[in-house]
């Protein structure tokens, strides 16, 4: 256990911070820790959480995905057409929504791998394309999502917010086993040292393609869940989520240089970011000062993460 904590120091810190923030939030909320409060909080957290997961898969292979928000916007618009009607139709629709996301990611990956262009530039351009398609589908916000389904996904189960259950299921049902697969380890290997990964006989092209596809897939999941929460399609949601997803993964201990961090960390980072915002809302800080406080907390959290280098005794250590 101690070993685990030492080698996953960043995630552990993120987890502790999250718990402290959540306690402060529930304590300061006028209605206390009611299911209603928890549900709203959890829904907001999970939207950004899934976006952060998407960003995580790009970042862990030493890439970045500036199209996360755009994929969310596109899949949200797709969802606003497909998530109504018969049960079978809805089920197929949900698959189609997620598949759309995965397809976007695959496109990103193919341009990165075969076009040999930096991910940051590729996803900058494809983000514009994805938003364009989203606008084609929904020039103005609209459409509908089956209310029963939306309620089931965004309310609570026996008092526990569904969003939290989804989070736990994603971690236990997907991430923990995935981490033990060749693909899961390959992502880390590629991000940590492409040379070592290649020499160990790993197909680095395939792994990179897979990473971007997974990023797209989680972007699709984020768009899907966003649709459950808002029950409409809106092509204009991209901007905020992309930059926040980057902030979230960094707060969750994922290093932008690749190879370090986990999906749990990315989720924790997203939850922290959203909890700070919620906390601010009830904290008594004048509402006009809240964005500034949010920004300062974000900057401070990031700067503390960087403070390690001030202790480096060999000046060459900081370069890498």
């Amino acid at each position, binding site marked *: 256990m101690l*070993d685990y904590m030492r080698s996953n120091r960043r995630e552990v810190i993120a987890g502790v911070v999250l718990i402290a923030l959540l306690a402060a939030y529930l304590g300061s909320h006028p209605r206390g820790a009611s299911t209603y409060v928890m549900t709203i909080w959890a829904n907001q957290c999970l939207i950004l959480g899934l976006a952060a997961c998407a960003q995580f898969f790009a970042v862990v292979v030493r890439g970045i995905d500036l199209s996360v928000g755009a994929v969310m916007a596109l899949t949200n618009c797709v969802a606003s057409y497909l998530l109504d009607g018969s049960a079978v139709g809805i089920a197929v629709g949900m698959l189609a929504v997620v598949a759309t996301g995965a397809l976007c990611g695959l496109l990103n990956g193919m341009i990165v791998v075969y076009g040999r262009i930096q991910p940051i530039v590729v996803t900058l351009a494809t983000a514009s394309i994805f938003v364009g398609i989203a606008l084609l589908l929904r020039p103005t916000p609209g459409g509908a999502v089956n209310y029963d389904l939306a309620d089931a996904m965004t309310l609570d189960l026996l008092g526990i917010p569904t969003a939290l259950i989804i989070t736990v299921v994603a971690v236990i049902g997907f991430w923990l086993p995935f981490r033990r*697969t060749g693909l899961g380890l390959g992502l880390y290997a590629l991000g*940590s040292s492409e040379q070592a*990964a290649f020499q160990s*006989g790993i197909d680095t092209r395939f792994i990179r393609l897979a990473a971007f596809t997974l990023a797209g897939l989680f972007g699709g999941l984020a768009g899907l869940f966003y649709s459950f929460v808002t029950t409409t399609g809106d092509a204009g949601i991209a901007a905020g989520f992309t930059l926040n997803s980057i902030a979230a993964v960094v707060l969750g201990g994922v290093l932008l240089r690749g190879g370090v961090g986990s999906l749990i960390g990315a989720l924790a980072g997203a939850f922290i970011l959203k909890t700070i915002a919620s906390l601010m809302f009830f904290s008594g800080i004048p509402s006009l000062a809240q964005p500034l406080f949010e920004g300062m907390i974000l900057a401070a959290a990031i700067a503390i993460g960087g403070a390690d280098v001030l202790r480096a005794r060999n000046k*060459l250590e900081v370069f890498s």
Partner: protein
Amino acid sequence: MVSIMSDNSTPLLEMRGISKHFGATKALDRVDFTCNAGEVHAVLGENGAGKSTLMKLIAGVLQPTHGQLRVDGQDVFLNTPQTALRHGLVCMFQELSLVPDLTVRENLLLGAPGAGLGWLAGTGLDKAQDVLNRIGAGQIKMGTRVADLTLPQRQQVEIAKAIMKKPRLLILDEATSALSASVVEGVFDLVREERDSGTAILFISHRFHEIEALADRVSVFRNGQRVETFMKGDHTYSEIIGMMVGQKIEELFPPKPPSQRDADIVLDVQNYTWESQVRDVSLSVKRGQIVGLGGLDGQGQGAFLMGLFGLLRKAEGTTAISGQATEINSPKEAKKRDISLAYIPEDRKTEGLILDQSIQENLELAALGRPDLDAGDTALYAGSLDQLALKHGGLELPVSSLSGGNQQKVVLAKWLALKPRCLLLADPTRGIDVKTKTQIYAILRKLADQGTAIILLSTDYEELIQLCDETHIFFDGKVVASLNGDDLTPENIIAATLNVASEPQAAHA
């Protein structure tokens, strides 16, 4: 699939007319080479002789420019390491192939035979643990991140990772360079066992006694060509050296003039201490003197040299330049005119040069910050480039187009433009061909004759003996021996690097 058994008539691996060119550099030039099952085949050669390139071709990391590889008599094209692995060709790389951010277990799993993209069952792990236990690495925890392991531990894990792949041909490229004698013995037992069960072993080492202990056959490479292949014992030590170097050792080095005892001290360091890596080191270098720093890798000599150049924070001790107490806190301060130190870093590709920029731009980079010099003036560099005989197709070409030896000449010339009072060199001839070495030795000697003080860190003890007036051997952060004159012998240096005098038999404990 090819059959697992191979009779004696077909070699396991056969290379015919293999050439590998990097730009203008011929790393390998029409090499024929074979390796049989059930033998340990040692490959010898100077740095830059083409050994590592040969290994990378076999491991599928590089592909030959010309020539054909055959496994069991069948033509193969090894386009990736995966393909090589499928043929049972496994390499334990000198540049370690472990992923630093993953744990030992995860690294072993990645390399396990049959590991695909799906669920990793961890079947080979018992075997790997068994190997680790046998080579004295049982204490390495499976859950430790590789980045947190020491260099010897990483080599041990790398060995376990290679052997758990059940190789048909196992390449050990400087596999034991950081391991202590007792661990090496365990590794050798293991290698012999592998050989006896029919595995072919390609063994690269710089330590002659290791070749003596392990090899069945020996091939010597020089300048990208195979000079000769023979059974162990067919040639004497000095004959083999002669094959490797192409000339006698003494001819490589310029004659050493008698040391001038009364010259002025240029750099004087007292009680230098940093973290736990450098402990209470005091030494000085005079005008015209070449002072050597020796020892096994990572005994503090490298850190000490960095410290002199202002790269270490919170170091203790005093430094005086020409009698003037000085504090040097950054390379920028170190290169100022009144201090005028120059540092040739160990890794020329990442530390010494900017590979994407032109030769000219690289040459100018150090002189640019000196107000008394006009960095654009080519006369600043012409002298040293002439003497070093830099081979280039134009100074505007990227420095990456040069061979390793010529790149190192650019690093030297870049700093010599500043006419440094004291030159600090971190293993400047590592991985460099013999001819360039000779040129570097000559220019160092000439600089010394002109009054430059030189501190030369080297892993090649011939350099410490033939070139240096005085040599300090580091062990565990301390200077354990300062040798000069007649004391400067291979035996004394080796004894001091292992610190045998003060800790007898420690290496075999």
